[in-house]
């Protein structure tokens, strides 16, 4: 049991006052951005990327992981109390969760959500501890062909499978790939698309791109419709969240089933937690119809428990996929991958051998973070909802100032600020016309890997394209991708048929 002793060492390095502080800061920040609609963990991590310049990697990553998990804890609070999901991952929790609150069961709903998020995250993280090193071992044989396959799978899965429209997804993807091209080409040394501007030789800084797309783009988007969105109202609630034994027993199977949906989806690049939360919700609903006394529609506890645990389970296995394969499966994971690159590390098989201290400290911090999150969310969820009292103008003005601060602090370059505004405008247009942002981010971050591995593979084979399929692992990856596309296609056709009836 190598894993256990490694994990114990990890706990040893996390349980220092300084690192515990980072866990705590991350969990608080994550819950806060989770609670606030429109703000998400991806934006929070993007705004905090500049801390990589001054913080040691362990501290930075355990803070980022806390934000990632915390965002998934916090998003259900407003979903339940206000019928407004804090994030897309809480949409499925909104239906039954808000109905529970309307029927006076708000405290139970908040408790179900918090314990569900805890269960899902915990189960997934335990699985990651045992399987990520195995996966990393498997992946040590990866060559250019396999890396290219991995990147292609990530591209197509996020662009075509998740987005409502494959055309919009692939369009977003190609914009991201184009942004990643700027700068000096690593293989040949040719300077590409810099038009002689020295500031662009290193490419467009990843901080500029992520902050521009996620933070500034969101501010511009909110500004453009600030007077148009209806205002949601919070339901008052005085009691503390709790569950009695009967309710706990009722929710338990749904928590476990939800986690079972979340774990596999976190490991594959399907753009985060939306799909598994809806699948988990749908299953609970079908099971509920067979019961003597169907609860759905009246505030079914299971209809809330399953999507909540599914969402956090994806976060757990997304961390596994990121660490073991270097494969980002959600927008937040993509930005964490960018953070690894800021430190000059490449997540993937070698990380477990080269930076094993960091990896195990990070995994241990996930467990610590989960308990911190349960403590700060379970009794205090109604308090978190008070964050909504921050006036929107100040909230977004603050985000804008921090976006400028983060970009300028990193480079002290006015050109970067101009680029920030341009990319913010791009982010606004993408949001305005419903193009997904995750493919852009994943393309920017994995684009260089895809390009170098493709060119290396082709250089070795002297231009023979067949080499890209000359590997069992690569073929397996492409096969999985094909299955995913078929599954989505079948579902879309089925959905259409259902609608027509």
């Amino acid at each position, binding site marked *: 049991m190598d894993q256990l002793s490694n994990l114990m060492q990890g706990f040893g390095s996390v349980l220092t006052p300084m690192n515990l502080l980072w866990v705590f800061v991350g969990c608080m920040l994550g819950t806060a951005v989770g609670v606030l609609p429109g703000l998400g963990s991806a934006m929070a991590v993007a705004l905090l990327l500049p801390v990589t310049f001054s913080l040691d990697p362990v501290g930075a990553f355990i803070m980022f992981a806390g934000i990632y998990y915390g965002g998934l804890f916090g998003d259900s609070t407003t979903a339940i109390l206000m019928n407004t999901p804090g994030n897309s991952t809480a949409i499925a929790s909104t239906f039954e969760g808000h109905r529970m609150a309307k029927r006076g069961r708000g405290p139970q709903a908040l408790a179900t959500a918090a314990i569900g998020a805890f269960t899902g995250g915990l189960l997934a993280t335990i699985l990651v501890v045992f399987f990520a090193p195995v996966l990393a071992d498997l992946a040590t044989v990866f060559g250019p062909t396999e890396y290219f396959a991995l990147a292609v799978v990530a591209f197509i899965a996020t662009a075509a499978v998740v987005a409502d429209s494959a055309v919009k997804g692939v369009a977003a993807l190609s914009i991201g790939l*184009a942004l990643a091209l700027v700068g000096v080409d690593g293989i040949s040394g040719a300077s590409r*698309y810099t038009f002689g501007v020295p500031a662009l030789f290193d490419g467009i800084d990843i901080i500029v791109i992520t902050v521009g797309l996620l933070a500034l783009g969101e501010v511009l988007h909110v500004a453009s419709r600030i007077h148009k969105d209806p205002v949601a109202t919070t339901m008052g609630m005085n009691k503390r969240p709790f569950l009695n034994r009967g309710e706990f027993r009722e929710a338990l199977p749904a928590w476990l089933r939800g986690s079972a949906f979340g774990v596999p989806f976190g490991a594959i690049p399907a753009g985060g937690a*939306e799909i598994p939360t809806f699948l988990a919700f749908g299953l609970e609903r079908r099971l509920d119809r067979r019961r003597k006394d169907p609860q759905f529609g009246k505030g079914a506890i299971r209809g809330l428990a399953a999507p909540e645990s599914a969402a956090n389970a994806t976060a757990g296995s997304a961390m596994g996929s990121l660490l073991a394969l270097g494969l980002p499966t959600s927008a937040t994971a993509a930005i964490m991958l960018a953070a690894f690159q800021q430190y000059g590390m490449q997540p993937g098989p070698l990380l477990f051998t080269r930076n094993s201290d960091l990896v195990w400290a990070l995994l241990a911090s996930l467990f610590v973070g989960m308990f911190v999150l349960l403590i700060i969310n379970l009794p205090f969820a109604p308090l978190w909802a008070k964050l909504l009292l921050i006036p929107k103008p100040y909230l977004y003005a603050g985000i804008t100032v921090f976006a400028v601060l983060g970009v300028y602090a990193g480079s002290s370059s006015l050109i970067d600020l101009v680029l920030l505004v341009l990319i913010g405008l791009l982010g606004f247009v993408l949001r305005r016309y419903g193009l997904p942002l995750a493919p852009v981010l994943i393309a920017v971050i994995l684009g260089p890997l895809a390009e170098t591995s493709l060119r290396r593979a082709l250089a070795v084979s002297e231009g023979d394209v067949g080499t890209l399929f000359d590997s069992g692992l690569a073929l397996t990856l492409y096969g999985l991708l094909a299955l995913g596309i078929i599954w989505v296609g079948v579902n879309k056709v089925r959905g259409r048929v259902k*609608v027509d009836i």
Partner: protein
Amino acid sequence: MSTSNQPGDAAGTTDAVAVASSPSGPSPSGDAATIGPRAGLSELVVPGILVAIAIFLIVGTVNMKLPPSVQVPGPTFFPMIIIGLLLLMAVLSTVQILRSRAQLLRGVKAGTVSAGFDDVDAHPDEFDADAVDLDGEQVDELPPDVPPGREPWPAKAFSDWRALGIVLASLVACIALLVPAGWIIAAAVLFWGVSYALGSRRPVFDLSVALVMSSLIQLIFGALLGLNLPAGFLAGVL
């Protein structure tokens, strides 16, 4: 993805009523009457951007100075694939936009889709209409609504260009002021401008909040953490 077509006419009407009474949606009949010949065409901005990026890449590729000895495939190989992808997506999305627009116009003409937009305007709370709360049938397993921040806009909605313009102007002012006037003033201008654009109407109070915030950042990040923020008028003091 369509969410408006719930089974039965009755449900359909409730939906339409819900949309009509929501603060953001004008009445369905109004929609039908006011669809201009150019409605929905603004979406063509997306293929426009794709083509613009493709042209940028083509110009850059043609003018690229290649080092004398280049390994094959060279530095222009991958960009060419992306140029192709961009142009292909521009064509496909143009076709898609024009087709869905044609469908919309036809529907409006026939009067079948009264609103035509309520499917894109749907917000999770409309799923919770009390009328159909108890049977649970109304809840759809498919994502009924795209996530917050990704909703496609109703074709008739217009952006608040004024607010957007003020935010952009504040950003430009901040960039212009940053070096000559210093972080405290530039960031305060930015904060003040954005909060004004987003509807705050207490300029004096906002200004003090903005100055406190920018000064605190200068103190914490500049003086304590050693970030390089331009001091401006404080140049001699700090």
